[in-house]
């Protein structure tokens, strides 16, 4: 069966420090991969999506970047965190070709202090 792993679950980082969040998917090949952010009291904002290794599309210009070094690995990074980067980060995958639901990870609560 397919599973998605996202870590860490919580993270407290100082302003200006780097960030690396990792997401891996098991039990499927060639998934579409997504990073979302949910700020307090707000909806989910799509940050990045990827349809293949090395293929990253950005939805919102910001302080973050994403990479997909392997088929089932999706990494969210920042060189220097801002206070506004605080939020709940969710990774998700869907079947290539679409038409099906998304499976979300359990999320990372990032607090930038």
């Amino acid at each position, binding site marked *: 069966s397919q599973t998605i792993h996202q870590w860490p679950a919580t993270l407290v980082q100082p302003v200006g420090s780097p960030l690396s969040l990792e997401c891996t998917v098991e039990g499927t090949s060639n998934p579409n991969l997504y990073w979302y952010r949910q700020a307090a009291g707000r909806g*989910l904002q*799509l940050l990045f*999506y990827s349809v293949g290794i090395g293929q990253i599309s950005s939805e919102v210009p910001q302080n973050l970047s994403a990479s997909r070094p392997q088929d089932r690995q999706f990494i969210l990074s920042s060189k220097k965190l801002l206070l506004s980067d605080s939020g709940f980060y*969710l990774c*998700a995958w869907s079947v290539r070709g*679409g038409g*099906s*639901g*998304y499976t979300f*990870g359990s999320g990372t609560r990032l607090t930038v202090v």
Partner: protein
Amino acid sequence: SQQGEEDPQALSIQEGENATMNCSYKTSINNLQWYRQNSGRGLVHLILIRSNEREKHSGRLRVTLDTSKKSSSLLITASRAADTASYFCAPMSSGGGADGLTFGKGTHLIIQP
């Protein structure tokens, strides 16, 4: 993909009652999906209804779709305390949705014991 707008923003009912929440969207769709998010957790895919379907059931969930009105509704029958969560709709336009689902602010449902 386009964003759905959930209504109401908040709903509080007694345990055992039925809960109905609505979703509106703007342009034609391939399918529409509903998700649940418990506090501090990732989203869980509940049900997907295709554009050529008018109603779909899954356990205590009933989803309807009216493409002429560009609207959908989610009915939860015989609500339980565990149904307390935020509910999101996600219309998926044609093209498979590889470019990411877009979520609104959701309906925050509270089931009073």
